[in-house]
């Protein structure tokens, strides 16, 4: 959540800087306002950067939550294999290495469950334990 708060702070700073830049160029206040409104509709970089930061944060939060939940359910299974993400052709070296091993849930938890950020693909990892 701190990420969204800091993105908000960056947006405020960027807006001020952009307004000052336009004023320094002698652009009229009405035109500056018109451009700000246009940027809110996604046509300028300032707000799209903010939008991107929120989307990235949600990507991580939603991904990690679902991944954790889908693997935590498997905690009672004696031995678990690391199944690679079947939707991608290339995998990071950590996931490739993990896919050759069979471990208990506890051992995987110590090594790092899929999507928890312990592999090179980080929180984007969509591998799973089966």
């Amino acid at each position: 959540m701190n990420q969204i708060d800091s993105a908000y702070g960056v947006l405020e700073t960027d807006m001020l800087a952009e307004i000052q830049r336009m004023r320094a160029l002698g652009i009229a206040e009405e035109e500056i306002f018109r451009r700000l409104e246009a940027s809110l509709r996604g046509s300028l970089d300032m707000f799209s950067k903010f939008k991107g930061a929120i989307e990235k944060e949600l990507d991580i939060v939603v991904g990690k939550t679902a991944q954790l939940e889908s693997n935590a359910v498997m905690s009672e299974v004696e031995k678990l294999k690391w199944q690679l993400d079947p939707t991608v052709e290339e995998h990071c070296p950590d996931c490739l290495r993990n896919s050759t091993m069979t471990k208990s849930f506890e051992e995987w938890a110590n090594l790092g469950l899929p999507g928890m950020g312990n592999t090179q693909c980080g929180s984007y990892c969509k591998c799973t334990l089966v």
Partner: protein
Amino acid sequence: MKELHKEYIDELNGLQDKEGKDIAEAFLSIFQSMAKASKGNIKKMLAMIKLSRKKLIRDAVGLVKESQGKARELGKEFGQVKLNAIEANASR
């Protein structure tokens, strides 16, 4: 199992995209309303954005929690599907 894994990933990707987009657009929509309310006064618009920060972030926390709830549900469902597949294999 790989097919079920793929279905889960497709759903998860969709959820990630949708939730991020929805929350970002909610913010932008509020900023657009502020721009409209400030009637061309830049100083007023900036002040509105600044003063609303705490409330908007608080609201965003609520929305993110809702998104997490949906993610938890999706993860649990897939976890159960995996468990069922393991049990089915074991009983063969």
